[in-house]
């Protein structure tokens, strides 16, 4: 099993997300994270999914995604040079001043920001690849995490390239 970052550009519509998720549910593909938002093109949204699966299963889900009429493009970015980011907000328990200082110091090392301060907690905003967010959360655990939210991964290929997909690429999936 390996992680794959799939990017799909889809037409905006009330049922689009439902169709995509229905497909994942039917075929039991586990989604680790999913984020969706508008793009520079009106009416077009971009879905980023991190899925865990054997390669053949990921190819199959890609081909199934193409059968959804609203799906324009699907790319597996896993083997491309890319930037991947997610954002997390973490509310960390800090009952004492030394604790607060430690938490702020750790956050600083990770270039995370304190976005809210209360008498017994700090809210930290951290952005980065999943591993960085994971490791920061691990460091906060001993203090006690009151609340945690993550956006899920968004990804973009580096350089000039946009997610590649064309007919030949679809064929490549099967050969």
């Amino acid at each position, binding site marked *: 099993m390996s992680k794959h970052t799939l990017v799909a550009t889809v037409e905006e519509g009330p*049922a689009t997300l*439902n169709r995509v998720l229905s497909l994942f549910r039917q075929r039991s593909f586990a989604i680790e994270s999913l984020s969706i938002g508008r793009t520079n093109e009106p009416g077009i949204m971009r879905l980023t999914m991190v899925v865990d699966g054997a390669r053949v299963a990921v190819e199959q889900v890609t081909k199934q995604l193409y*059968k959804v009429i609203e799906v324009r493009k699907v790319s597996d970015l896993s083997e491309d040079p890319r930037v991947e980011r997610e954002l997390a907000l973490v509310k960390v328990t800090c009952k004492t001043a030394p604790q607060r200082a430690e938490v702020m110091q750790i956050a600083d090392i990770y270039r995370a920001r304190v976005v809210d301060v209360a008498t017994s907690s700090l809210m930290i905003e951290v952005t980065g690849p999943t591993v960085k967010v994971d490791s920061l959360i691990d460091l906060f655990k001993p203090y006690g995490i009151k609340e945690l939210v993550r956006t899920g991964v968004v990804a973009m290929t580096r350089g000039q390239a946009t997610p590649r997909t064309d*007919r030949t690429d679809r*064929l490549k999936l099967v050969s």
Partner: protein
Amino acid sequence: MRLSGARAICQSLVEEGVSTIFGLPGGAIMPLYDVLPEFPDLHHVLVRHEQCAAHMADGYARAAAALKKPQEQRTVGVCFGTSGPGATNLVTGICNAHMDSVPLVAITANVPNNMIGTDAFQEADITGITIPITKQNYFVRDGKDLPRVLREAFHLARTGRPGPVHVDVPKDVLLTEYDWNGYPSSVGLQGYQPTFEPNMRQVKEATRLIERAQRPIIIAGQGVLLSGAWDELRDFAEKTRIPVMTTLLGLSSFPENHELSLGLMGMHGWVHCNYAVHNADLVIAIGMRMDDRACGKFAGFAPQARIVHVDIDPAEIGKNVRVDVPIVGDVRRVLSRLEPEVHSEALQSHAAWLDQIAEWREQYPPKCYPSTTPELYQPQVIQAINRATRGEAVIVADVGQHQMFAAQHYEYSHPYSFITSGGLGTMGYSLPAAIGAQLARPDKQVWCVVGDGCFQMTLQELAVMAIHRVPVKVALLNNEYLGMVRQQQQVQYGGNLVEVDLAGGPDYIKLAQAYGVPAWRATDPTQLDDVIGAAMAYPGPAIIEFRVARNEDVYPWVLGGTSLGEVLPDTPYEAERDRVLAGAGPSARDGSDR
């Protein structure tokens, strides 16, 4: 011009060339029915259950596909249902069409826009329900979208890999008037671009394998029929001298009286076909989806072969079995590109291979019965129908033992002369589908081959058959069992027969009379020709009840989880029947099952 939503739908159907609609009205869809008489080109068939509206439309579309038409003009089955239960009743029929790639447009009404989401009377989230069983679906909350939506719906249903499209329209949209600016001449679906033309690199690669192969076979699936490629397939097979077998839904895509025809392969396919797959060095799978019933255990499928897989749907390639040369494209175009690439003089001789298959065929022939037997056997009935119709009829088979006997013992030589529920295996499919098929093909005699279990699921449609005098001939094979389940319990569950006994069912002759349909009964093989002749001579619908042996099993049989090479040609159980045939009298086991 302004048209109400209801009129816009009817006008769109006329623009799409629709002539027949199957449906049943109810509260929400009444505005649509209200305007239907204004459109004399649209003939509506009132069904007795919405499931059958979908099945009739399905049978109609399949039978009409035998009249080869360009893809853009392909006949689409159309059905109507009202909101809530009317729509949910369509679900089985829509799913059936989805599994078997049938072009279908299902139109349902929903509660008015302002009631949507309030759990109103007869409200169901039907588009939510049909997402996974349609090629596409639409919930049209604004009537100005109707012409575009219907244009897209028909385009999607009939092009590429066909399938069902569902359009749901709230009641107020049917009643409100909108500007009608003519029917759109084109569709703008950027996310839908099926691949028709094959990649020539792959075609050349396949050619190399074909020229090198010594033990090649072709497996023809329904894709051959869907793309109207039966002539191209025959040309290709004749040029390459590669024998052709078919999947269940591929039956009739290659004439079974052709010297290169091997017949049915798969779970209940012929032993020689399954042995040929198992021993082939090249499998050319054309327009099929490598279904588990066709392929047996995937890991054990064609273990010695390179596999060329042709299909218009890229998601089918490599889904179940490994593929060496994938060719994505329309079967007809692929075959017409492939054929000229193959050089006859470069081909290996397949003579020894064809001899080998012929030897298997001789060793494991189809069941053959004496003209008199103590009981009536299902293959005898199908063989008698084949004789009487000279293979010219359209056979619409239901699901179960009789379906497999119908697939095995009729000689299919005309495209779409066999219609059945292959993928979903929907019991009750055949009667409504036969009615639909007969309406699409008034020039053909249509036979509905149905078991007593299946018949009781949709027999209310006898009313439609009788009232419209649709001259379908119903061959009811009555063994008073859910026979296929009984057979599996017998063999795979140690003979523990649980809830499969249908004995004590209705008197089918009286039932037919209640609907005003003439009926005959046969209990003995000597009666076969007479009753079949009488039913065929009668100009309207007719039913023949064949009281068949209760304990006959379908063989050959590839048991679940085994490969095609492990096909069971026969069993001791059958040997026991042979003893009965030889006049030894019924055995104890025969008696204990009653």
